[in-house]
């Protein structure tokens, strides 16, 4: 059967991977190609590159990063951050990305997702959703922008369904309540959205240990789990994560 995926996320700033990288034996710990190669060797199922500055000038640098990585690492690559125009998508795909992740632009211009899916196919359009819990009885989550600072009034579950109707092939769901906390995914919102839409869900935000990854799949019903810090710092390798999940009965590619 289809394996659950583990996706390391690399934050890229001006062509360099930032936010702590554990690989001490590689020549240059910020080099995207070397880090991507290392994750690939450890068994990463995909890689996500997040352009954290996402400025216009930085776009060319990001295209170059994707080109270099795609020339050496033969697993799927997703690029997010600052994808606002069809031409941004075209350039990333031509550089060797397999998918792009659209976040803010989807909120401000939902039709952009529709146009992108029609032009490039749903298989390469990931819509990133930043959700925050805004009610507990009943549980309710809302879409936030600007790193979780600005509410939009959009219900997260309804928004995910709408994005799938518009052609999103996958949903990257980040819990703004959990992001950076290392206390685990928000399993309730993950499960609510996974059960509400027919496309795969990538859970993100809050991973602090390997049990969290397994919980995301087993309880959150996520199809893939994305994590940054546990892989970047000297905590766990992707292979350890997969072995842990396999031991709990989760199908993974080992």
């Amino acid at each position, binding site marked *: *059967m*289809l*394996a*659950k*995926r583990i996706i390391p996320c690399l934050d890229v700033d001006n062509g360099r991977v930032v936010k702590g990288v554990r690989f001490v034996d590689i020549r240059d710990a910020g080099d995207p190609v070397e880090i991507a190669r290392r994750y*690939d060797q450890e068994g990463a*199922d995909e890689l996500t590159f997040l352009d954290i500055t996402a400025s216009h000038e930085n776009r060319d640098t990001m295209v170059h990063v994707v*080109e270099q990585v*795609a*020339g*050496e690492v*033969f*697993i*799927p690559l997703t690029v997010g951050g600052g994808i606002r125009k069809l031409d941004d998508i075209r350039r990333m*795909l*031509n*550089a*060797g*990305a*397999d998918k792009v992740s659209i976040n803010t632009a989807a909120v401000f211009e939902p039709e952009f997702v529709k146009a992108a899916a029609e032009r*490039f*196919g*749903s*298989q*390469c359009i990931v819509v990133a959703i930043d959700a925050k819990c805004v009610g507990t009885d009943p549980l309710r989550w809302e879409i936030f922008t600007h790193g979780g600072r600005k509410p939009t009034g959009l219900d997260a579950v309804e928004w995910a369904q709408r994005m799938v109707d518009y052609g999103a*092939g*996958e949903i990257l769901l980040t819990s703004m309540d959990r992001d950076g906390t290392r206390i685990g995914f928000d399993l309730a919102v993950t499960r609510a959205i996974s*059960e509400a839409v*027919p*496309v*795969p869900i990538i859970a993100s935000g809050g991973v602090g240990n390997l049990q969290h990854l397994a919980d995301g799949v087993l309880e959150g*019903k996520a*199809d*893939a789990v994305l994590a940054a810090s546990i892989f970047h710092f000297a905590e766990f390798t992707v292979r350890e994560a997969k072995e842990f999940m396999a031991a709990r009965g989760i199908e993974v*590619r080992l």
Partner: protein
Amino acid sequence: MSTVAVIDYGMGNLHSIAKALQHADPSVIVTVTADRETILHADRVVFPGVGAIRDCMAALQRLRLDAVIREAAAEKPLLGICLGMQALLDSSEENGGTPCLGLIPGRVVRFAESTGNASSSQQELKVPHMGWNRVHPLRAHPVWDGLDHDRWFYFVHSYYAQPTDPRCIAATTYYPEPFASAVAKGNIIAVQFHPEKSQADGLRLLANFLRWRPEP
């Protein structure tokens, strides 16, 4: 020096497939092209594709590549990938029914999505079928050299091929029922998954294809 032409008709990520072929065998000359003569003079042809089938067929017809693909398949090894596999069948039910190239008898159908009320024992079926899944070769073929033991390959698709002749099915994959994840007939080998995105085993399959000499 062996040459391989990757057919460029504006559908999909040709950079990846070209790089992967080059990586799989650095001695091969890889050309990404829509030029009839270049394709017909190459030793081998790769027919990739992602996106919707109607756009794919329209682009092939506009560039007159449909005839070129038929001609190439009659003469030399041809590797179809993803939409390039689906386009080889008679027709696809995508886009309200689309006639395809008819090189492999059969049709292309959509995965049935889960309705949400499936019993808990049933696997919830997400569509597209996206991610890594095992490929079980059903018949001996040189492209499976070293890959005959249910290896993992990367898939992204919502439709799959149903060849009329079971002898054309070169491999199956479970989602949740077995479907044809590779077909083979004469000079044609075609795979639903993406060998160019399937790490070492994907490169191995490409290297095997680049070495394959079909029996006349």
